[in-house]
């Protein structure tokens, strides 16, 4: 198990945002996280990535306890994330964004060392080139990130999250804000790239077609906890999940469901 979560709980005063979460994820699995708004999905992601400190419970990454560590430490250990609203550097070009992400991920030592290492070294540039190719954003290379279409912003955000070759990547709603007809294209690119980089993926998603097509396993969140954990088709056909989360009309999607 690359990631194991035990009795995880998060409370804000009297509000229970997450409770009693017990899941374990083997390496290279692709997990979809579903749930209505406020069900605790993002709280779960935030606790694993160190953005929120759990009130109780523990998080083990590769057998090591990472509970409550700051996000930048967890990132350096090998868990990375993308954001629902793409967190990129709008003033820089696409290529500069990737170079910056790669340079930060590749640096060793403290801040002083970072002041003595050149940003555009040959190895950083080569690595950034391959990342640009991998995510298919080469034609936007010299455009300022502020001017990018939404789909490319999302891809760039994910490409930056992958710059440090993480072993686990959490994607917070990778297709939110994307036109329906572009969603599958975007997910195809992302999933192919992540498979090539051999990353274990957990993605939060509201679109059940996307979940069914790309996830190997689904965590269904309701009221702060995981009420169902299983293969996508089975989980999404569960009447209780349909009632609480996905809605009754489950459209059985295109052939090849489950494999991207």
């Amino acid at each position, binding site marked *: 198990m690359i990631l194991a979560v035990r009795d995880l709980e998060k409370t804000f005063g009297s509000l229970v945002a997450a409770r009693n979460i017990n899941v374990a994820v083997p390496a290279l699995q692709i997990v979809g996280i579903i749930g209505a708004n406020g069900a605790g999905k993002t709280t779960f992601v935030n606790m694993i990535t160190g953005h929120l400190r759990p009130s109780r419970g523990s998080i083990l990454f590769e057998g090591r306890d990472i509970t409550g560590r700051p996000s930048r430490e967890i990132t350096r250990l090998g868990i990375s994330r993308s954001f629902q609203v793409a967190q990129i*550097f709008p003033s820089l070009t696409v290529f500069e964004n990737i170079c910056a992400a790669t340079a930060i991920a590749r640096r060793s030592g403290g801040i002083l060392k970072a002041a003595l*290492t050149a*940003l*555009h070294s040959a190895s950083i540039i080569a690595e950034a080139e391959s990342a640009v190719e991998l995510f298919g954003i080469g034609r936007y290379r010299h455009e300022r990130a502020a001017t990018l279409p939404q789909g490319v912003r999302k891809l760039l955000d994910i490409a930056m999250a992958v710059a440090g070759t993480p072993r686990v990547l959490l994607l917070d709603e990778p297709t939110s804000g994307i036109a329906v007809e572009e969603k599958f294209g975007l997910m195809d690119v992302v999933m192919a790239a992540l498979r090539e980089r051999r990353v274990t993926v957990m993605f939060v998603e509201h679109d059940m077609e996307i979940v069914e097509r790309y996830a190997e396993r689904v965590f269904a969140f309701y009221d702060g906890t995981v009420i169902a954990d299983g293969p996508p088709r089975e989980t999404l056909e569960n009447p209780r999940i349909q009632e609480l989360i996905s809605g009754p009309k489950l459209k059985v999607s295109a052939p090849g469901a489950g494999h991207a």
Partner: protein
Amino acid sequence: MRNRERSKMHWRILIGAFAFILLAAAAPALPAWIVSLATIAFANALVVLGLVILWRTGLVPFGQALFYAAGAYTVALLTRYTGIRDVLLLIAPAAVLSGLIAFLTGLLLARYREIFFAMLSLAMSMILYGVLVKTETLGSTDGFNVEAPTYFSYAPHGSGRTLALFWLVLAFSALAAVVVSLYFRSVAGALAVPVRDSEIRLEFLGISVNRLIHLKLVIAGTLAGIGGALAALSIEHVDPNMSYWTTSGGFVFVTILAGAGSVAAAFVGSFLFELVRSIAYDIMPGTWQMVLGAALLITILFLPEGLGSLFARLRRQSKPETIRARSAA
């Protein structure tokens, strides 16, 4: 891309080296008032260079005079109470002390942004102002004179003193320009605009934004300390006004004038500022601030990114085809 970057870098080094040699060689032939003006302008440009580093991350300190005065007073006190006269032995402690103060104040300052950062830095500089004004042994409101330094046990006389100091300031300017240029190409230095754009992304890439800003504060503080030390040697006098908020404001003024785009602009901007100020003071002693205000207004209206953007604009006009090729690539 790398080759283009490298050739651009080579050109800058060449132009910088040429300007340095030209200024150093021309100084004996120039009128003394211009040499003195350039001396104080370049000393102040070191402070501006530090502000440019912070400005790029979106931070505007209104208390940089704290480190400027710390550097100046270190030199002044050393000449007053010790036998140390050698320039390097005077400036090195000034740099270390102001860097140390920047490190200590940075522990707090690095956590703040925007107006809160600006006001907190201003408050810290005003504490030093209060201490200097009230302390008799530090010269109180009058301050005190700084004795002439020696250069590796050589003591120049008459006009030689002005020239020697100018060359010294020029050498420090060149050194600072090279160091800061290299810094801007480093991982930590290049992460200035990203700090302004998205701190969350930086943290989740695995780098501490506060530590990054702390480092920038120490570099800027050290530069301001060296600038203050050189200014004290140039003016041959220190007083508490060096730590007053209007002095800090003056540095911010020059930073706006110069813009954050280029290292050279800090020196050109600082020189133009001193030049306009002394000419304006000559022509209209009572209302010279109006001229400076108008100059700033014109800069903001027509060159919102400062004098540095003028260099970039000229470069672009001189070879439009390369730009087109670049955007097509």
